[in-house]
């Protein structure tokens, strides 16, 4: 893997930021202050970050209901995100979207999505626009193992392939769709195999391994950028928290999550390889951890203190003109 120290530290910081963001929301949600349904990304950070490090503001991503990590990795403002999750007027979506609909088109984040399989057609469109407008931009869509069974996703594989779109499908196979195992719902062992049926390269990587994701993404995104067409990257990974906050996860094996946290954690993995290769010192990382903690602390405090939307906002933003 060719990557600079700066890039590696950036990766570590972003992964840590996502983790801290999610761990903190997990705590705050329990207090009842956060409305609605919240799906946390903790455990899957290496994917969003390993992929998005290859993207610039010219590139676009389409996300899922579990979108916080994708948003942060694509450059959404953490304060704006937190305020949105609290439903506040200064949120990224003025409090109208919430966790499941965070978006910021200016940075190329096309939106989290409350509809499983909602993203792939949209990403095909962003990729088509990039191709037609000659921007050299690439579109990446994140899909879960459950989402890989949705017709919209499968149709999009065919469309991206026949139009040779600069589009990369990143399947986050975390083993579950809500309480249902992918062993039950997904025919076949590797979702990457599905790509082949659509004449598209498909690879499977360890989603806990930042470097593995980074390398696979580099190749796929590079190829897409050069006009080489779409790729599907399946990342086998795990989520730490329940499907959504409030899920007791009784469907998971005893100590399943505990073992994962202890042995497969993507941030620990990266930290270990960074320090062992003595590229950076544990102190460097500790410093980042503190800065991240402070950032999230500040984001939560400001979000809690922020103003609610006003009733006059209810009927605005439906149309640009009506």
């Amino acid at each position, binding site marked *: 893997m060719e990557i600079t120290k700066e890039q590696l530290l950036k990766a570590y910081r972003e992964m840590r930021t996502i983790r801290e963001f999610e761990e903190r929301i997990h705590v705050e949600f329990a207090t009842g202050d956060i*409305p609605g349904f919240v799906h946390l990304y903790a455990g899957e950070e290496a994917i969003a970050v390993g992929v998005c490090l290859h993207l610039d503001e010219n590139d676009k991503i389409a996300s899922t209901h579990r979108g916080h990590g994708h948003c942060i990795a694509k450059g959404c403002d953490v304060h704006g995100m937190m305020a949105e999750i609290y439903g506040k007027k200064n949120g990224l979506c003025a*409090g109208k*979207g919430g966790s*499941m609909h965070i978006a910021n088109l200016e940075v190329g984040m096309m939106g989290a999505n409350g509809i499983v399989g909602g993203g792939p057609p949209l990403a095909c469109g962003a990729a088509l626009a990039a191709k037609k407008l000659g921007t050299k931009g690439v579109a990446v869509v994140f899909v879960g193992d459950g989402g890989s069974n949705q*017709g919209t996703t499968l149709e999009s594989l065919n469309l991206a392939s026949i139009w040779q779109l600069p589009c990369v499908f990143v399947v986050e196979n975390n083993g579950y769709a*809500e*309480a249902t195992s992918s*062993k039950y*719902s997904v025919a076949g062992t590797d979702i990457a195999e599905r790509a082949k049926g659509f004449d598209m390269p498909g690879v499977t990587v360890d989603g806990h391994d930042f470097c593995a994701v980074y390398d696979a993404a580099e190749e796929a995104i590079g190829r897409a950028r050069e006009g080489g067409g779409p790729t599907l990257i399946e990342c086998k990974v795990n989520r730490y928290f329940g499907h959504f906050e409030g899920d007791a996860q009784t469907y998971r094996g005893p100590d399943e999550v505990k073992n994962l946290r202890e042995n497969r954690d993507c941030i620990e993995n990266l930290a270990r390889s960074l320090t062992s290769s003595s590229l950076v010192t544990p102190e460097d990382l500790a410093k980042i951890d503190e800065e991240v903690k402070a950032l999230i602390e500040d984001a939560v405090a400001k979000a809690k203190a922020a103003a*609610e939307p006003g009733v006059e906002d209810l009927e605005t933003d439906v149309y640009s003109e009506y």
Partner: protein
Amino acid sequence: MARKITFQQAIREALAQEMERDESVILMGEDVAGGSGTDGEMDAWGGPLGITKGLWSKFGDRVMDTPISESAFVGAAIGAATAGLRPVAELMFIDFMGVCFDQIFNQAAKFRYMFGGRAVTPVVIRTMFGAGLRAAAQHSQCLYPIFTHIPGLKCVVPSTPYDAKGLLIQAIRDDDPVIFCEHKALYQTEGDVPEESYTLPFGEANYVREGDDVTVVALGRMVHMASEAADELANDGIECEIIDLRTTSPLDEETVLESVEKTGRLLVVDEASPRCNMATDISALVAQHAFGDLKAPIKMVTPPHTPVPFSPVLEDRYIPDSGRVATAVREVMAYKA
């Protein structure tokens, strides 16, 4: 023997009793059992809100988790219904109809007519709808006007545990495709429900409250908003007659028209988006067939023509409440020709 149970328990009881009674009834949907293929507990979920939890333990593989492939499994339920089963498919949120609507409105709804009457499709699609849970624009819609619009579908919108049980059992025994819409904010509400199995006929509205001054037609959660308003209005001597439609298709036109004949005034309360919804449907019915009885303009209380907002402040303002109903009734009563 009736006892108090929740709306959610009433739904589960209806499903359990029909599965006991009829081997051909099966359940399918995402996580309706929950735990399929996992190393942990089976029957762990019963859907995200646990509505069907416990049924897998009772009925085993007659309760089937599905992949996130609504077209495939809702279509499979429909195909199975033409082949000897009486499937109940759960479309988790009614908002997801957009990925499987074809199977519902072009297939199930039209088989009988397209095939010259030589088909029955006894399928029930249970689905959760409505605002109030801070679930935002893609998980809070009503959409029953869309199903009501489609010839060949029946559409049920219960407001109480008693109605939910009786109407769901009727839906399962019915030979036509039924869309059974459960308001997610009602699941925990309680009511008297007989333990034994019973059915409520489709197309028979329920007089929730009798009154001579104004007819208030409502459905689903709005029935409760209307009742609260009626209590308040009664203190001022305004007597509302509240009619709960129970089913939007078939529709009990007679009950609505009879009531307006008596009261001469109509208010319709509908949580669905305002254009081409049940409020317009009922208003048009009355304007055409009970015009002569009307003493005042028909009024409709609905949300604004906007998606459902996430912000609690905005969502609370979005949902029609008893205050808006009461105000509207007073306006209708205040009208002078």
